[in-house]
């Protein structure tokens, strides 16, 4: 059984592997280009471990940003993680010693995998631990390889990063198929689209989050009132 948990966890993370290797390599190449060798990328993957933030970090580091503005920037880019935590409070209950690491390693992609839950027949604790660990290893490997290779890559990787989008689409489809309540998913997509149009590509995540929360709270209150009437 232990073996099958490892295998199941590995297979679940393969889509993330392709995405993280490509994105990690892109980051490593970018860092190397600014004079930061492979071990800088490896160090960031080990300590910060957050894809989008690390791309912002390239500019902060090479531009010699101030500590305060770096802290504020990180707060803004990473605020969405608050929501990930809130939505995993129940799932990550009883995870024991592995829990701090599970929380530390909660990237967008690992969050998405965790949302789908541990497949039946697997050791839950082990499964969540392994998907978190595998994902981080892919990310560090990607950054390191990118840093070492520099710009020496020859095959056309254009479009390879679509693997990440595809993974999210799969998880979205799975959730739509496994529930009869489609309202939260529709609220999520519509809020994001509206905020994307209003706030633009760079700044729409936080307004989207706020709008989603407000609408979901409203939905909850509305349904509660309906129940009370019946």
């Amino acid at each position, binding site marked *: 059984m232990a073996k099958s948990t490892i295998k199941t966890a590995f297979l679940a993370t393969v889509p993330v592997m392709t995405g993280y290797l490509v994105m990690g390599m892109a980051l490593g190449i970018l860092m190397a280009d600014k004079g930061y060798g492979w071990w800088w990328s490896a160090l960031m993957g080990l300590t910060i471990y957050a894809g989008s933030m690390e791309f912002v970090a390239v500019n902060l580091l090479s531009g010699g940003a101030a500590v305060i503005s770096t802290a504020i920037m990180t707060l803004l880019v990473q605020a969405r993680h608050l929501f990930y935590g809130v939505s995993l409070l129940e799932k990550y209950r009883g995870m024991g010693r592995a829990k701090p690491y599970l*929380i*530390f390693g909660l990237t967008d992609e690992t969050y998405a995998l965790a949302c789908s839950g541990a497949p039946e027949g697997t050791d839950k604790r082990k499964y969540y631990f392994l998907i978190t660990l595998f994902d981080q290893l892919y990310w560090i490997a990607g950054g390191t390889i990118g840093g070492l290779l520099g710009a020496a890559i020859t095959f056309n990787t*254009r479009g390879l990063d*679509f693997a990440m989008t*595809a993974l999210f*689409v799969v998880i*979205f489809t*799975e*959730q739509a198929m496994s529930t009869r309540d489609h309202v939260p998913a529709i609220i999520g997509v519509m809020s994001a689209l509206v905020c994307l149009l209003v706030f633009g590509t760079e700044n729409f995540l936080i307004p989207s989050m706020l709008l989603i929360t407000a609408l979901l709270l409203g939905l909850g209150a509305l349904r509660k009132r309906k129940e009370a009437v019946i």
Partner: protein
Amino acid sequence: MIDVCHSLALIVVMALVTALLRFLPFLLFPEGKQAPKVITYLSGVLPSAVIGMLVVYCLKDVQLLTVPHGLPELIAVAAVALSYVWKRNTLLSVLGGTVVYMVLVQMVF
């Protein structure tokens, strides 16, 4: 020339702030304590909404107004979703969809 000390300091700051945001919900609502009802409710409905938002986030840079009008993305996303409904195999849909997308952006459009 790289300022090693300053760069290291910035990495520490980014790592700490990121970890703080990730840990905060778990620190505010520890396992022993019953979380407020509204938080339990949100933890149930947020995931599907947030995943929906992340799909939009992944596709945010698609230009609808210029050629090819987001057609490669549309076709590839449809291929992923439909193949998943059909076979319910994550790996197949992700790898297949990615190959479709790469062929589209490299050779067709």
